């Protein structure tokens, strides 16, 4: 109950902070319109992907422990989660390699990372675990 109250308060805080523009931005998650993306943008995004990948791992653990009996652990859903985890990981690796070697991080790869993150957010993983608690 306390967690839900905190979550609700956080979302309310966002809405009070001028959310009209934010709602428009939410629909446009692929930011990069230039050819390359700077490290100070890539690094937070890669960290965010890691957080999502961790929730995907929690979801996988849940399904495995439950022996895939839940509808949310269907073959189709699992394939979707695996697809976005793999795509996001590949993009993250490529972006970090660029930063490490001093090469420009390509916007196409960055947008692929964002697409994977968006795809993972759209899967039932997080919600399924929340409902199972």
């Amino acid at each position, binding site marked *: 109950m306390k*967690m*839900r109250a*905190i*979550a609700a308060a*956080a*979302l309310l*805080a*966002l809405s009070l*902070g*001028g959310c009209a523009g*934010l709602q428009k*931005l*939410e629909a*446009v*998650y692929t*930011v*990069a319109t230039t050819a390359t*993306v700077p*490290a*100070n*943008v890539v*690094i*937070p*995004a*890669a*960290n*965010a992907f*890691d*957080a*999502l*990948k*961790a*929730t*995907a*791992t*929690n979801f*996988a*653990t849940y*399904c*495995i422990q439950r022996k895939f009996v839940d509808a949310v652990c269907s*073959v189709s859903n*699992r*394939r979707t*989660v*695996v697809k976005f*985890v793999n795509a996001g*990981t590949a993009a*993250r690796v490529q972006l*970090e390699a660029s*930063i*490490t070697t001093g090469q420009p991080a390509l916007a196409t790869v960055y947008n692929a990372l*964002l697409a994977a*993150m*968006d795809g993972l*957010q759209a899967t039932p993983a*997080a*919600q399924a*675990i*929340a409902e199972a*608690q």
Partner: protein
Amino acid sequence: MQAAITAVLTLIEQLIPLLGLASTNATVKLIASIITTLVQFMPQIENEVSVVYQSVKNIIGALSANPDATSTQLQSLQKLDEQVDAAWNKVAPDFDPDAAA
């Protein structure tokens, strides 16, 4: 606990599109607002999901007024990568319906 993590991840997803925008006052204020909310969440998730906690901590560090040097941020990220990748690779063979038997 999961509701807090879900809220945190929602905030992160809302933050990402802002990062590449021009640093207008409105954008800076909105990012600061999101960061402040993330910081408030930290104690709730610290003992629950350490990976999410570390991820948020890295993001806050990267976007704070006095961010660490890129090399330091990258080291923190790579350390998190190793932890996250190892955990996923452990479950993937059983979870992936198309994994080789």
